[in-house]
């Protein structure tokens, strides 16, 4: 036997990098074909920048009260007027982007990591694991989503952190079902059997062979569930069990604006439009991503 010449093998790191480049390239091409992807992607990027650079954009401290300037009308000094304790509404809306987008990121991370791990385990291991996890998720789905969030938040105590956790938990079923369903489909393919035959471990098969195949639907779901997260958080904030005052949270800002509806009807417009714009953009981005990444799922 002659010595086998060692071929330069691509390392795992290089392969992942290639994979990432391929994905970015795929997205870029898709962006040109699906202009909605670019438009709403840009809106989201702008919102994120607003959140990150809130201190530079906001003209006032969002918590600074001014008893002499309560419920003033929109003016060049206060673009959206001032609220019931004289805080600048525009600055509060700008800072609110931090809370809302931060919650979206954290809630989706919670839901995605728990949901996907549980879904992969249920779909790939099957048997009892599947039974137990699936019934658990069914039980969660027995609650209308926001009601479960309300129950969880009231149990843990009202605060921004607990609202985030609750909004994350209620979205676990979405990712669980997605991951489980995809695994059940993918694992029947021959390349999975082949990988098992050459001795790949379960974990390796899941990570290297199954995960890449379910990544696209997960990206779509993450975008859509960001919009759900922001709506749910706004609802919790509105009924007073989300972020606590004086945090500039869009939902609780609308709640306090509702008290002054007769005197200062413009107050609810800033946070209301901010919620709408963010939720709408995430859900449109999700639709566009679905069209681009997974044309089979396209909804007419």
């Amino acid at each position: 036997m002659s010595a086998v010449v060692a071929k330069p093998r691509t390392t795992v790191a290089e392969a992942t990098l290639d994979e990432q480049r391929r994905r970015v390239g795929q997205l870029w091409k898709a962006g040109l074909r699906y202009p909605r992807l670019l438009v709403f992607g840009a809106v989201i990027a702008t919102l994120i920048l607003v959140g990150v650079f809130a201190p530079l954009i906001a003209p006032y401290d969002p918590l600074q009260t001014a008893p002499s300037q309560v419920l003033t009308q929109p003016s060049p000094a206060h673009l959206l007027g001032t609220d019931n304790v004289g805080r600048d509404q525009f600055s509060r809306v700008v800072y609110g982007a931090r809370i809302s987008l931060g919650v979206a990121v954290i809630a989706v991370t919670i839901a995605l990591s728990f949901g996907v791990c549980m879904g992969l385990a249920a779909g790939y291991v099957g048997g009892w694991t599947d039974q137990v996890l699936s019934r658990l998720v069914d039980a969660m789905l027995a609650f209308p989503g926001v009601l479960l969030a309300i129950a969880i938040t009231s149990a843990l105590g009202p605060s921004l952190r607990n609202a985030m956790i609750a909004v994350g938990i209620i979205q676990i079923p979405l990712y669980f079902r997605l991951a489980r369903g995809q695994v059940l489909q993918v694992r029947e393919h021959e390349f999975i059997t082949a990988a098992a035959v050459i001795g790949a471990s379960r974990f390796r098969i899941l990570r290297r062979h199954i995960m890449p195949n379910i990544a696209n639907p997960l990206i779509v779901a993450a975008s859509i569930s960001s919009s759900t997260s922001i709506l749910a958080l706004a609802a919790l904030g509105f009924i007073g069990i989300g972020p606590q005052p004086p945090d500039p949270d869009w939902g609780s800002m609308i709640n306090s604006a509702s008290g002054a509806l007769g005197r200062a009807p413009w107050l609810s417009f800033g946070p209301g439009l901010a919620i709408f714009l963010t939720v709408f953009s995430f859900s449109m981005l999700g639709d566009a991503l679905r069209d681009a990444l997974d044309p089979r799922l396209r909804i007419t």
Partner: protein
Amino acid sequence: MIPVAFLASVMLFLLLKLTPGDPVQVMLGERATAQNYEALRHDLGLDEPYPVQYLRWVGHVLEGDFGKSIRNGGPVKDEVLARLPATIQLGVAALIISIAIALPLGILSAVFRRSPVGFFATAFSQVGVAVPGFFLGLVLIYVFALSLRWFPPGSYTAFADDPGQWLRRLVLPALTLSLFGAATQTRFIRSGLLDTLHQDYIRTARAKGFGEASVILKHALRNALIPSVTLLGLQIGAILEGAFIVETVFAWPGIGRLAVDSLGARDYPIVQTVVLLAVFVFLLANLLVDIAYAYLDPRISYVRSRS
């Protein structure tokens, strides 16, 4: 459904146990001594293991005993039952309005796909799901109640007292609550109908010489509506959670507002009972939807076929 209901009830029970605040401490207040604290704890059965407490709780619930309100000490059941009719009226009205909007809009937008109607319907279904109910409610109150004065800004009048006033007060909250369902249903009806219109039997019906209206309304619509029936279950869930918000905005004395007020007052037995009731209604609605689904589409069977 039974195992799901069981697990859901365990979840709710555990959430109840996690809830901060010691009920014994709350009930005794200043009079708490180590001795009567232990005595009351024992009387309430709170010193027993969780599984025993759980079974006792389920037993009480099945007997219709939902505990006592922390705020006024009255039975939770009475308070919730007193508020239930207002929520039912609001929910049913919202459901009717959403179907009344979605059905014609969905059909028109599928038939006249590339027309302004089609564009409007698509925009409506996309925008409608992104508008938070409380914001829409405030806008409607401002425009139609405070500015135009067409409707009162909120509150409730019983139908028996004054039917006209009842209807005037119902319109704005029901419209607000219906938006989400109307938007999602429009989309479902539209895509269902678009799918169906490509089927062979539709071509056959046209070839046989049926008029276009008859083809769409009699042949296509029946099958096209099947997916949106499944959506009804979810929609009822959305109405239940929306009731919490919309009732708060419009000062509507239903169970949602009761729960929100109780959250503020930390009256958790009431909150838990309302959530329990909502879960029950949601499960029941989904069960009925499954049954209706099998009835509407004979290809679907929940019994394994004997072949």
